[in-house]
């Protein structure tokens, strides 16, 4: 009896030693599985919560659908204080002004065309339609067209709006030849991007035909609108690396010097832009344009392009003899912009321009500009700029700009 009891006890003890750990293993496994299931459930609950938050009610779908058809609207404001030695009460001299308020409206018209416009207001200038053009995407042979009021794509500075410039003003050669605010005019352009064998090179060939005239104060062409201006641009772009690029451009323009002449002025321009990004936040850009004209008539209209709104037509009519002018005036600028960080940038520009009509000693305009930019955010930029210009007439000017440029809403200018 005693032996059987011992045997039973031994058996029970052995079974306990085997079964209890086995149960413990199973229990541990079940606990682990339960914990994993709980985590998975929590994750699913969280994803459901996020989905419910991002889900849109029926009413909102209708409202959102309707409002999605509204055009993209944005605004860029340029508020500037200019201090100058010039006595002219012009172009915001010696006062704080809302120099430019651009209302930018654009939208796809249909799958084949898009409309973009820039309406420009100012507290010292008249309202202008700076741009209002249709872009056509479905033209054969991979071409693209623009029709309407455009900033002609000639050179590098003219196609850009004032807020896109590296400086607070346009280069003097642009101001003198094409207008204080550059040249924008009504007409059409057709262009084609292409490349040859290398994927790191792209070419762009463009032709344009627009109405006559240049921008306010520009002297290259006469203001007679029915005398058209023709132009072409060939751009060559190299991806030297993912940090560095080089662009060379050649431009040809043909326009009219007066109401009675037709396409008698030819201009050629070359441009170069070199950009190197040191890293994601630091970048150096060097840019230059050289303009040359071939003409046998003086400039008939416009001012000097640097702040004097004189109408030379009266002068020409009243002059006793032929106006002395340059047959081959040239103008150029070289600029450098260095982005030091996400917050700060510095830069400068050298300008040289030969006015078309020769007055006095027949000198040229020459200027130097230096600036400092502070980027408060992606949408707000402050700039302080100093410029010294020696004008052809023998005068000189020292100017300081204090500029605030802001953007609100959707504001996307076309790629350069």
């Amino acid at each position, binding site marked *: 009896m005693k032996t059987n009891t011992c045997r039973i006890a031994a058996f029970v003890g052995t079974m306990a030693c085997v079964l209890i750990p086995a149960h413990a293993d199973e229990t541990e496994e079940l606990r682990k599985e339960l914990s994993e299931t709980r985590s998975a459930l929590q994750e699913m609950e969280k994803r459901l919560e996020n989905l419910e938050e991002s889900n849109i009610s029926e009413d909102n779908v209708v409202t959102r659908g309707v409002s999605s058809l509204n055009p993209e609207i944005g605004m860029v404001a340029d508020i500037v204080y200019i201090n100058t030695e010039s006595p002219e009460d012009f172009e915001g001299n010696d006062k704080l002004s809302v120099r430019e308020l651009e209302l930018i409206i654009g939208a796809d018209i249909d*799958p084949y065309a898009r409309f973009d416009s820039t309406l420009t207001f100012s507290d010292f200038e008249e309202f202008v339609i700076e741009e209002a053009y249709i872009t056509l995407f479905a033209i054969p042979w991979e071409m693209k067209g623009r029709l309407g009021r455009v900033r002609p794509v000639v050179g590098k500075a003219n196609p850009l709006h004032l807020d896109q410039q590296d400086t607070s003003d346009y280069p003097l050669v642009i101001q003198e030849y094409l207008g204080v605010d550059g040249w924008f005019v009504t007409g059409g352009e057709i262009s084609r991007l292409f490349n040859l064998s290398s994927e790191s090179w792209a070419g762009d060939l463009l032709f344009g035909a627009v109405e006559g005239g240049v921008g306010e104060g520009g002297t290259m062409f006469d203001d007679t609108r029915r005398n058209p201006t023709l132009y072409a641009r060939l751009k060559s772009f190299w991806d030297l690396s993912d940090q560095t690029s080089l662009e060379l451009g050649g431009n040809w323009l043909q326009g009219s010097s007066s109401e009675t002449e037709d396409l008698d002025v030819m201009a050629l321009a070359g441009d170069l832009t070199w950009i190197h990004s040191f890293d994601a936040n630091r970048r150096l850009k060097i840019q230059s344009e050289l303009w040359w004209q071939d003409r046998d008539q003086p400039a008939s209209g416009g001012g000097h392009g640097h702040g004097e709104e004189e109408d030379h037509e009266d002068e020409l009519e009243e002059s006793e003899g032929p106006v002395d002018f340059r047959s081959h005036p040239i103008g150029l600028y070289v600029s450098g912009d260095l982005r030091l960080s996400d917050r700060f940038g510095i830069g400068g520009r050298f300008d040289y321009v030969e006015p078309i009509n020769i007055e006095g000693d027949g000198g040229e305009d020459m200027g130097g500009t230096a600036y400092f930019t502070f980027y408060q955010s992606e949408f707000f930029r402050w700039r302080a700029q100093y410029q010294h210009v020696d004008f052809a007439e023998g005068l000189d000017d020292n100017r300081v700009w204090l500029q605030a440029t802001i953007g609100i809403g959707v504001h996307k200018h*076309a790629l350069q």
Partner: protein
Amino acid sequence: MLPVGGIADDEQRLNVVATLATFADIAQSIGGDRVKVSHIASPRFNPHFIEPRPTDVLRVKRADLFIHGGLDLEAWRGPLVDAAANPRVRPGGDRELPLATGISLLDVPKALSRADGDVHVHGNPHYWLDPRNGRVIAETIAEKLESLDPQHAHAYRDGLDRFTGELNREMKKWESLLAPHKGREFVAYHDEWAYLFDFAGLRSEVFLEPKPGIPPTPKSLLQVEKHVLEHGIPAVVQATFMPKRPAKKLAGRTGVRVIFLCQNVGELPAAKSYASLIAYNVTQLLSALED
């Protein structure tokens, strides 16, 4: 990556252009030698601020398929597509593929104002950093490739299976390594890691940027410094292309580690594919958590 069904001619391959290198990598993984893939944004630069070049415009012009994030991260996408003048890749075109479809977005704003900085209208757009979304992206791309090239649908499906198979295996490993650290908090430079942290069970609630897209100020850095010290934050995380000085300053004052994560494939040599991008990020996070 093994060639599938032989090497196709250049002419027969679908010309796929993606905005980001990560999307391009996934497309290449799915498409194999049936696709010729390129991307616009160099992974070394901030994808918010890319200036497309004429060569990029030409690529999109000639694209058979244009893949993009679908939200508002790539604000430069609109002007790029306008310049390319390829009607088929314009919004709604049959050769355009926004990848946000099917993604459960985080941080969808309830109100919109630039007073809150550079807010993303539709929600946080950095969704590809969650490998669970990587599976959704791969499925979306595979479906599109199959519809454009049904003759080789089986090849795209095989590519998808290989991609998701490898990803699923790696995800199990990452999840088990990260599980003990659930709930831990990091500080980030910019709010671009929400999806990665969501997958990893981690969180980031304080950022060096006082508001999205607004550079850190001395005052905002002081507030972050206080948070780091009070909460025992293991590290500050940021992408390699974000300014390094603010985090360095913070590290100098608090001793907190600064670790660099990758936003996109190719940003660092270690992130040469989608799986290795996530693996690299997980490894970096673990190195701070286990320190």
